C-alpha cells in the first residue's frame, strides 16, 4: 500500500487548468521525482497536498485512508511536510527557535512550566534528531547568518521534528552549490532508509536520474508517464516533458571578440557590516563574447553585477562602458546607454509582481515612445500589442498580457524578464543565474538567446552557480572567490575539475593541469 496516493486531482485557475485529472502515488522509502515544463502544474499539485489549495476534484489517501487537508498545519499533523523554494524561516531567530516554533509542546501540568519555554529538553531531542540523520547544525546561530544549504537543512529538521513521513522538496537544488547538492542527496538516502517518502521536483534531469527511484512526467497539467529510473534517459524524459525532441545541446560557435565594451578597474566594495565583498577586481568584456563568472554563491558576484548595472556604493574603482566612465551614472542612464540586466532575484528586482505582464514587459522603457504619447500619457494599445507579440515570440505560457506577473509559473516569469531585456537592444547584457528554476525547454531557449546576443555582437557577462551552464555558454571563464577573480581560462582549456578547485578557494591549481 502506498504511503500516499493522490487520485484524479483537478485544479482550475482562471484561464488555466493547472492539474487535469492527475494521479500520483508515493511508496515508503522511495524518492519519486516530479518533472515537467514551467507551468506544467507540479507546484500546484504539491500545494494541494500541503493544504494550500483545495482541489476542485479528486481525493487524497494517506496509508489507504481517504483524507482531506485543510492547511499546512493540518498537513504536517498528518505527516506531510514541504520544503518550499523560498524558505519559511525567521531569519533573526536561532536555528533552535526556528525548529521548535509552534511545536513547543506542553509537557507538564503546572501552569508556570507550561508557559515557560523549556529549551533544554527540546534541544536534546533535536540533537538526537540531527545525529540520527547526519544533519548537524549549530543550534544557536541566527538563521540569517547561515549559507543557503544549511538553511535548507534547518527546514528539513523542522519537518522531521514534527514527525513528517512524506517530505516534499520543490526545486530544492536550484540555490545550492554542487557540494550542498551532494549533501542533500545523502540526506535523501538517509531518510528513505528510514522508510520516509520523498517527492522531488527539479528541472535538472541529471540530478533526477541520480536520486530518483521513480520519475513522473507531467505536461500541461496531465500525467504523461511514470517510469522507474532504470531505463530512463535524459533525452527520453525531456522529450516527454516537452512533447517533442529536445536537443539538450547549444550550438555555440567560437567567439570573435571585437572592441571592448565593458571594463571594470580595481573595484573594491564592502557590505553593510564592513566585510569586503569585492577586492581590487578588474575585468573586461568585449563585443561578441560571453564571459562567464563561475563561483560559489556569495563570493561577490551579486555585488559585481550590481556595480555594473546601477550606482552602488563602492570604496574605489571605476566602471567603463565603451571607454566612457559610467561609475557615477544612475540606473536609467546606464540602461539608456545600452546595459540590460537579468537579475538573479526575479521577484525582488526583476518584476512588479502585481502589475500586468504588459506593464512588466515595457518597464525601463515605459517612459519613452512608442509606449507614451507626446505629453506623457501611456499608450495602452501599443504596450499591449508589443506585449502580445513578445509573448508569442518567447513562448510565454500565460492566459494573456493583462495577467498579473505573480500568476505565472517561475520559468515563465523568467522568460518575461529575458524578453524585456533582449528586446531593449542592449550592447551589454548582464545575466545572473538566467535559468534558475527554468525548465529544460526554456533553458535551451534562453541559451539560444544568449548565444544569439553574442553573435549579434553584444557583450555578455554571465554569472551562474551552475558549472555546466558556464561551460556550455562562456568563451572565457573567470572564477570568483572572496571578491576576487582567482582564475581565468579560455573555453577550450577549461575543465570542470580545475574550475571547481578554484571555486573552493585554492590559491594555485595543479601545475600539471
Amino acid at each position, binding site marked *: 500500500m502506498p504511503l500516499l496516493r493522490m487520485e484524479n486531482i483537478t485544479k482550475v485557475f482562471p484561464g488555466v487548468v493547472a492539474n487535469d485529472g492527475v494521479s500520483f502515488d508515493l511508496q515508503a522509502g522511495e524518492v519519486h521525482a516530479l518533472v515537467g515544463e514551467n507551468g506544467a502544474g507540479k507546484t500546484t499539485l504539491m500545494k494541494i497536498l500541503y493544504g494550500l489549495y483545495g482541489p476542485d476534484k479528486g481525493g487524497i489517501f494517506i496509508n489507504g485512508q481517504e483524507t482531506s487537508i485543510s492547511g*499546512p498545519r493540518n498537513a504536517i499533523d498528518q505527516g506531510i511536510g514541504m520544503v518550499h523554494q523560498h524558505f519559511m524561516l*525567521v531569519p533573526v*531567530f536561532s536555528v533552535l527557535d526556528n525548529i521548535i*516554533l*509552534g511545536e513547543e509542546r506542553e509537557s507538564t501540568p503546572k501552569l508556570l512550566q507550561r*508557559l*515557560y519555554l523549556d529549551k533544554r529538553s527540546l534541544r536534546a531531542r533535536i540533537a538526537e534528531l540531527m545525529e540520527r540523520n547526519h544533519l548537524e547544525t549549530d543550534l544557536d546561530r541566527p538563521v540569517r547568518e547561515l549559507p543557503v544549504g544549511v538553511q535548507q537543512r534547518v527546514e528539513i529538521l*523542522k519537518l522531521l521534528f514534527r514527525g513528517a513521513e512524506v517530505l516534499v522538496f520543490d526545486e530544492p537544488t536550484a540555490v545550492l552549490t554542487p557540494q550542498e547538492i551532494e549533501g542533500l542527496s545523502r540526506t535523501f538516502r538517509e531518510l528513505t532508509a528510514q522508510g520516509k517518502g520523498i517527492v522531488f521536483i527539479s528541472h535538472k534531469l541529471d540530478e533526477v536520474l541520480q536520486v530518483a527511484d521513480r520519475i513522473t512526467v507531467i505536461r500541461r497539467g496531465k500525467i504523461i508517464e511514470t517510469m522507474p529510473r532504470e531505463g530512463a534517459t535524459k533525452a527520453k524524459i525531456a522529450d516527454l516533458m516537452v512533447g517533442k525532441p529536445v536537443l539538450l545541446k547549444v550550438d555555440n560557435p567560437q567567439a570573435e571578440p571585437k572592441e571592448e565594451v565593458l571594463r571594470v578597474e580595481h573595484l573594491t566594495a564592502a557590505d553593510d557590516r564592513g566585510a569586503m565583498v569585492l577586492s581590487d577586481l578588474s575585468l573586461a568584456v568585449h563585443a561578441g563574447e560571453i564571459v562567464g563568472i563561475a563561483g560559489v554563491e556569495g563570493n561577490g558576484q551579486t555585488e559585481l553585477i550590481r556595480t555594473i548595472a546601477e550606482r552602488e556604493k563602492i570604496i574605489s574603482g571605476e566602471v567603463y562602458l565603451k571607454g566612457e566612465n559610467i561609475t557615477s551614472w544612475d540606473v536609467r542612464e546606464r540602461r539608456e546607454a545600452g546595459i540590460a540586466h537579468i537579475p538573479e532575484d526575479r521577484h525582488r528586482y526583476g518584476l512588479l*509582481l*502585481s502589475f500586468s505582464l504588459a506593464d512588466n514587459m515595457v518597464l525601463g522603457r515605459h517612459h519613452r515612445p512608442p509606449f507614451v504619447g507626446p505629453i506623457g500619457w501611456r499608450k495602452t494599445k501599443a504596450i499591449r500589442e508589443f506585449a502580445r507579440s513578445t509573448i508569442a515570440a518567447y513562448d510565454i505560457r500565460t492566459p494573456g498580457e493583462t495577467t498579473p506577473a505573480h500568476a505565472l509559473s517561475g520559468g515563465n516569469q523568467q522568460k518575461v524578464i529575458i524578453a524585456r531585456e533582449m528586446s531593449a537592444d542592449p550592447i551589454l547584457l548582464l545575466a545572473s543565474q538566467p535559468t534558475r528554476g527554468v525548465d529544460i525547454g526554456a533553458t535551451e531557449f534562453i541559451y539560444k538567446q544568449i548565444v544569439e546576443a553574442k553573435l549579434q555582437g553584444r557583450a555578455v557577462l554571465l554569472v551562474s552557480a551552475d558549472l555546466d551552464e558556464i561551460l556550455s555558454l562562456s568563451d572565457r571563464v573567470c572564477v570568483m572567490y572572496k571578491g576576487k577573480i582567482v582564475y581565468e581560462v579560455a573555453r577550450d582549456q577549461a575543465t570542470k575539475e580545475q574550475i571547481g578547485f578554484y571555486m573552493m578557494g585554492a590559491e594555485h591549481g595543479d601545475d600539471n593541469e
Partner: protein
Amino acid sequence: MDVFFEFVVRGLVISSPIAFASLGGVFSEKCGIINIALEGIMLVTTFAIVWGALSTGSFLGGLLFAIIAGVVMAGIHAVVTITFKVDQIVSGVAINLLAVGVGRFLSQNIYGQETQSPFNTFVPPEFLGINIMAWILIPVTALVWFVLFKTKFGLRLRSVGENPEAADTLGINVILMQYSGVLLSGVMCALAATVLFPSQWVTGMTGGRGYIALAAMIFGRWHPVGAVAASLLFGYADTFRVMFERQIPIPAQFVQMLPYVLAVVVLALFVGRAYGPAAVGKPYRKGGE
C-alpha cells in the same frame, strides 16, 4: 532631601510613563503592528484612571478603568489594522485625533468642563517619597523581557512580527498573536497613566510622551530593556531641565527643548541602521499577494 537623591527619584517619576509606553510599543511592533497611537491611548487612560478612582473611591478602581480604557483604545487600533488591514500609521493618527475628542467629551459630560477633571485624592501610595507605580516599572520591565524571550507565547509573538507566513504554516494563529500584542500595548499605556498624573486629568497632558516612547523603543532596538533604558535617558534629560532650569542662563524655551533635541540627535547619530521586526507595518494576508 539630598539633591542627588531627589534627581534620581524625580527622574524615575518623569521617565516611567515614557518607559511603560515604550514597552507598549515593543509589544505592538514585535508582533508586526506599528503603534503610533500610544499617545492617544495614554491620553484616554489618564482620563480613565482619574474617572475610575473618583467613581469607585479607590486607586485600584482607577487602575481597572485605565486598563479597560487602554484595551478598548488599543482594540480599535487592532480591529482597524489587523482585521481590516488599514494602513497602521493612518489608523494611529486617527486614534490620536479621536483620543483628544474622547477625553474632552467624557470630561464635559461627566464633570461639566471639557479641559480638566476635579482633583482626585485616591492616588497610588508612595514608596521612598514617590509614587510606588514608578518603582513597579522595574519588575514590569523584567516581566516583559521574560514574556517575550522566555515563554512560548513570546516566541510565537516575535515570529509573527518577523515572518507571519512562516508562522502561519507552522499553525500559529497570526491574527490572535497580533491582537495580543496590540492589546498588551494598551495595558502598558494604562500603567503609564498610573504615574503620569493620577491626581487630575488635564486635556493634552500626555504632551508628546507617546512619541518620545516610540523614539525610545527604536533607540532601544525593540528590546524591552533597551527601550526602558532609552526612556530613562530621555526622562532624566527632562528631569535635569525641570530641576535646574532656573540656574541655567539660557532662555527656558531652549532648555525645554532638551529632551526632544536629545531624542532626535540620538536617533540620527547613534542608532544608525536599526532593524525592527522584518514584517512590521505590513498587513498580513493569507496566501501572499
